[in-house]
């Protein structure tokens, strides 16, 4: 099985870093999609199916928290695992995002090894 993965971050650098790590990890990839904010991601998710979403929190237009809340109200999208990769390290924010239904929360700066571990955890059972 080859996976579709969506990376949502307003930073091209962050998206490229995540995409390269996924390629290095030799995850069986079908397609990596990019979105620059929550709204772009939701629009994209109306058209394509993905197995896993990586999302930042602080983004223009629509932030990651709102994106996750909206995904959780949509039948087709509510079961897609979302992994937050954010610069925000506050315990309150992490608790808030867990409540909103994210599966994992990594804080920037992430290492390729952190990312590989989380991908293996979610895509093996996918």
């Amino acid at each position, binding site marked *: 099985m080859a996976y579709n993965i969506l990376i949502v971050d307003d930073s091209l650098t962050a998206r490229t870093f995540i995409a390269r790590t996924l*390629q*290095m*990890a*030799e995850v069986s990839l079908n397609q990596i999609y990019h979105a620059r904010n929550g709204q772009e991601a939701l629009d994209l998710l109306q058209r394509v199916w993905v197995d896993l979403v990586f999302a930042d929190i602080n983004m223009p237009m629509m932030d990651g928290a709102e994106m996750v809340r909206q995904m959780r109200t949509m039948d087709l999208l509510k079961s897609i695992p979302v992994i937050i990769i954010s610069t925000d390290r506050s315990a309150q924010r992490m608790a808030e995002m867990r409540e909103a239904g994210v599966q994992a929360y990594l804080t920037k700066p992430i*290492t*390729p*090894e952190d990312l*590989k571990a989380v991908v293996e955890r979610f895509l093996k059972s996918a």
Partner: protein
Amino acid sequence: MVSKHRLKTVVVGLGGMAISDSPDEVLIAHSLGSCLGVTFYDPVLRAGGMAHCMLPLSQIDKDKAQETPCMFVDIGVPKLIEAMFKRGCRKKDLIVRVAGAARVMDSANLFRIGERNHAVFRKIMWKNGMFIRAEDIGGDRARTLRMEIATGRVVVQSQGQEREL
């Protein structure tokens, strides 16, 4: 499991590097402080390599860099990788483990030598598209790093305790 008394120890000294595919050999780097002990193991060819690097960047001493490249992480580690490739190892098979980079040599940590050794090592791994399988890094303890060629088992000894990486 290879019985210990028949194993031959190959000491990888400061600025040294060794590669082996002899199942009766153990590579060992003693007393890693802020130094970095790097191991690569190829389970297909059952070959392993170890380097014992002291400083992050070779530009500070060009003569030393020529003479003892493995003294420096930035040229020593690529040299070890290259030597493994010459043995026939493939990048995707290499299991990377690393230990050391403590603060023991510089208690005020003015120069962050351990952290820098680790940062430069990670940069080389990222450039080469390689993941670090396991590491035992930082803190203020000295470590001894050992790799058994027959099994690829890597063990860190520190303060009387052993931990498999």
